[in-house]
């Protein structure tokens, strides 16, 4: 268990909320519900399966993410974690099953429409716009909130595009302050260090003003200090900004410390879903991570309970 994230858990209580403007938060952020009491589900996957030809990436996955919780997906490499997140963000269409977001069926909703309903995400392999400045990258996140297209954008000074840009710049600066990337705001995203790029990507996802934010390995490749910072940002996002967080992460220390609930995937199947302590104690999970044979997931082509 990592001492770093344990510390950040303690720090989050004292985190500075004064610097965050309430306007930048979703309206329902005022009182984050205690997720340990089963809140309403913001996201529900119902019997989701995903096949690529003969390869089964996901098999019959069902789970719910409750409003206001930090929900982590863990599992060995190739377990289908990113595939699951891709199904939620619209990159893949599930072969079977449904995905509901806020009660609405979004299984077949176009990827680009998911930003507007409140789903934001970061990518496992950095996906910034390398030739744009950090500021512009984050402003792209506000795309669906802006109204001035090329028609009124070209005569910038007439027609309100300038006012809109300035208004949004102000909100973007709040995100920049929160993530402490002021010093690089005019730098090209492609020239930044790995840890900073990860932070800019998180900033861009926050700029969408999502209700649910999907983080695909937010701490991969970071050193201890950067991980500490990132854990604190994630907790602040959850507690102060009221965002629900679905996270894929390999650092078990972090996952166990900051998650409210954890789901474990192995070979595209769900083998556990519970509170961190319970998951850690689960024998199937231990076997999946130790690589021993397991009677629950012995053969991906047969149903496990056959």
């Amino acid at each position, binding site marked *: 268990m990592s001492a770093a994230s344990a510390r950040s858990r303690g720090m989050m209580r004292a985190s500075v909320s004064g610097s965050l403007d309430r306007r930048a938060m979703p309206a329902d952020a005022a009182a984050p519900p205690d997720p340990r009491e089963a809140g309403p589900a913001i996201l529900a996957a119902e019997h989701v399966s995903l096949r690529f030809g003969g390869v089964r990436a996901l098999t019959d996955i069902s789970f719910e993410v409750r409003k206001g919780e930090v929900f982590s997906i863990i599992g060995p490499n190739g377990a289908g974690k990113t595939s699951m997140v891709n199904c939620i963000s619209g990159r893949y269409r599930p072969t079977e099953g449904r995905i509901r977001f806020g009660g609405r069926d979004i299984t077949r909703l176009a990827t*680009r429409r998911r930003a507007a309903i409140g789903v934001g995400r970061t990518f496992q392999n950095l996906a910034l716009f390398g030739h744009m*400045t950090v500021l512009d990258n984050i402003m*792209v996140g506000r*795309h669906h909130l802006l109204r001035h297209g*090329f028609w009124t*954008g070209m005569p910038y000074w007439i027609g309100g595009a300038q006012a809109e840009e*300035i208004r949004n710049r102000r909100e973007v600066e709040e995100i920049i302050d929160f993530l402490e990337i002021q010093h690089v705001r005019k730098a090209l995203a492609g020239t930044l260090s790995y840890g900073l790029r990860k932070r800019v990507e998180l900033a861009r996802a926050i700029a969408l003003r999502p209700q649910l934010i999907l983080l695909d390995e937010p701490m991969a490749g970071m050193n201890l200090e950067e991980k500490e910072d990132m854990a604190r940002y994630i907790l602040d996002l959850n507690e102060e900004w009221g965002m629900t967080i679905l996270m894929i992460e390999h650092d078990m220390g972090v996952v166990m410390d900051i998650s409210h609930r954890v789901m474990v995937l192995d070979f595209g199947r769900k083998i556990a879903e519970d509170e961190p302590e319970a998951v850690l104690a689960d024998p199937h999970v231990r076997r999946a991570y130790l690589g021993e044979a397991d009677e629950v997931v012995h053969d991906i082509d047969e149903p496990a309970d056959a």
Partner: protein
Amino acid sequence: MADLAPAGDYRSSYREDMTIFPTRNSRIALWIGILLVACAPLALGRYELGLLINIGFMGIAALGLNILVGFTGQISIGHAAFFGFGAFTSAWLHETWHIPVALCIPLAGVATALVGLLFGTPAARLKGLYLAIATLAAQFILEDFFARAQWFTGGVAGRITEPFELFGWRADREESYLYVVLFAVVVMYAGAANLMRTRDGRALVAVRDHYLSAEVMGINLAYYRTLSFGIASFYAGIGGALYAHYLLFVSVEAFTILFSIQFLGMVIIGGLGSIMGSLMGAAFMVLLPELVQAGADALAGGAVDRALNLGNSISFLREMAIGAAIILFLIFEPDGLAHRWKQVKAYWKLYPYSH
């Protein structure tokens, strides 16, 4: 490199921080540049003014292509056909409907944009080489249309058109037409600079840099890929219309694929994804043949001239010089003149240090 604000340059509002020009001096330099061009008729002859006008309308068309190729990462090898369509549309509108030329030019831009959107629809699905072939089709279809649609282009005879006129002011000489082109260049370049710092411009660059994450950000890929064709064609149409009312004659044979390649050359030499680079590239392309000519003239009569017969092969030399320039730029300065200019500025700012 990206952020070289001079010491003591403090901005206290977002409005100040979001201007097109990074420093006050660069803004002043631009005004001085515009003023110099405006004063050019006092000092330059008609031929040199003609070159400036050429740089102007070529620069507008090149900027359109740069928005498409440099900023959106698409490809088009049919840009000259759209340029030609703008020229014919403006001439046709004026002669058939007697619309004043001052209105014909923007209308020609809009009409060309619509044609560009039509030919740009494959761009919603195609990329790279496949898209290049699709735009090649646009080039040949439009060229064929110019040759056949006699009602529109005047056929083989071409179309004669009238000079620009506004409230009785006739811009029928280089000295006066220069101001029309200068105005158009300022408006179109300011428009592009504004586009690139607002929502749709950022979306275009986002589509180029990482289309998967652009989609997750809520950007409609097909819409923006097609839109960039529309905008590029709009600029080509305006450039073409300005060309038509400068030469006062539009020939069906002018808008070949070679001309399209020349536009691509301007964009590459000027700098992909740079607004002022488009103008630099256009200036380079217009002035390069003059330079070759001047070189040949200087050598005329000498031993080199007699040995290589320069006087008779000057037209080939021009083509070769353009080809060589593109190759040399691709090797030594793939980011174009705009990038080189930035480095020169950085050198002076940092002197005597190298970083």
